[in-house]
């Protein structure tokens, strides 16, 4: 593996403030190479979003270490979470401001970022005037405004219709290739994982942990309908089912 952009070592996360202590993640080890596109795949409760929040610095691991090797981290969520009191331009400018970009550079940067997500005319619009897909494009532009080397995406397209989602897959793949950034993408959709990833990290619940890793060696650009993508997603589905059966059997045996 080339030089890593992210190293997760022995990370465990438990929530002890709830009525019954819950172990959300146990003994997670993961290394992601610079410029790699990795999907975290698993059903709900497997701790994939928890892992992502910890990489983003929004939560601390109970034990273990997360090292982003000094790389700037950006994040997108299932909702675009645009600031509703700001225009599209204002949202991107706030990200530039918070990253310490000098004001003189803002107009050029905003234009470049909106060009990149193919929304050059939307600068003056308000978030509520945009469709769900357009909002996610703006959220992508805003995350890129931070010049992040690692982009975390927490099921960003789960709430979109299939056509919009396909278009955004193309978009993300293009941005990832052009910018050479590392992407860590959380999903419960096997097809999406096979469509996007260099490598799929399969996770399983109770307790949340990594159970398998699959290299997707398919050439790019890919499409959701590709037979090879379908075949890979079939394999991923079997893997998930297998590990869930193993977990269920362990639970029954204990």
């Amino acid at each position, binding site marked *: 593996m080339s030089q890593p952009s992210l190293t997760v070592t022995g990370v465990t996360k438990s929530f002890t403030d709830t009525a019954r202590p819950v172990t959300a993640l146990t003994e997670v080890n993961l290394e992601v190479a610079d410029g790699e596109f990795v999907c975290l795949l698993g059903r709900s409760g497997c701790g994939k979003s928890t892992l992502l929040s910890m990489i983003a610095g*929004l939560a601390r691991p109970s034990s273990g270490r997360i090292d982003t090797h000094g790389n700037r*981290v950006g994040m997108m*969520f299932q909702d675009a*979470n645009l600031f*509703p*009191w*700001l225009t599209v331009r204002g949202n991107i400018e706030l990200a530039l401001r918070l*990253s310490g970009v000098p004001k003189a550079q803002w107009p050029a940067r905003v234009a470049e970022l909106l060009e990149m997500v193919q929304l050059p005319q939307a600068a003056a619009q308000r978030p509520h005037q945009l*469709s769900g897909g357009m909002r996610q494009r703006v959220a992508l532009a805003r995350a890129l405004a*931070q010049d992040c080397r690692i982009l975390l995406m927490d099921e960003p397209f789960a709430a979109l219709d299939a056509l919009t989602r396909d278009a955004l897959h193309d978009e993300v793949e293009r941005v990832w290739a052009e910018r050479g950034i590392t992407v860590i993408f959380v999903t419960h959709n096997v097809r999406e994982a096979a469509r996007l990833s260099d490598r799929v990290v399969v996770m399983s619940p109770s307790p949340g942990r990594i159970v398998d890793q699959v290299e997707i060696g398919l050439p790019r650009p890919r499409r959701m309908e590709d037979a090879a993508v379908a075949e890979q997603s079939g394999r991923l589905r079997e893997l998930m089912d297998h590990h869930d059966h193993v977990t269920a059997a362990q639970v029954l045996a204990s």
Partner: protein
Amino acid sequence: MTALATKAVTESESYRPRTRRLWDRVWPGLLALVLVIGAWQLLYWSAWKPDYVLPSPAEVGADLVGFLGTAKFWLALGNTLTRAVIGFGLALLIGTALGVAVSASKVLRAAIGSALTGLQTMPSIAWFPFAILIFGLGEEAITFVVVLGAAPSIANGLISGIDEVPPPLLRTAKVLGARGATLYRYVILPAALPTYVAGLKQGWAFAWRSLMAGELLVIIASKPSLGVQLQYFREFANASSLIATMVVVLALGMIFDALFSKLAESVRKTRGLSASRL
């Protein structure tokens, strides 16, 4: 897609001519006015009370018009409005500072948070005897009570606005690198604005009520005001001028309330929270 949506809205609005839309907004108010004056006129005709106690609407209207030509009325109006603006302005500063402090500090929230709500339930007129003891019969007593009436509403509006900032927005802001004062300035305070404005509106209503109570209780001889005018007309049993003054107090309250509603509406509209487009 957005271009289409925008177009549809513009079309449905231009469907009705401008004068017609203005009429749509005005007629409910006019109807209410006609009903009230009609009922009053009927009561007057029934001779339930003698003329000098319950004058006719026409008489009161004539007095109201008469006010507009006297310098004393404008002086009184000016003094009352100046007090309102100063009191509300102070309440705005104090309430906002309190709101930020309480929402930012756990200790202060425990210590002051519930006291603020308690203060809000206290009828402000009950403060006057105490205020007069401390400050004497003067401006300070009035200002003190006006501020005490309005500041808790303003502070509470800001506090609940800050408490209700959606957690996903906060997470996003943190990922973008906003911390401490920067987080407050660029994310938390703007996000809290709609609730804050609602608090301002409520604070204004309390300020106006406290002010009227104050002007009735704390009579400053050399200084005409709407409250003094009310007292004066009662003492001289001038019912029609008394009611005319009440109409002025009511109208001013409604005008300011409408201004705050307008402000709240425009804040909501930019965020897509407005229902007025339906």
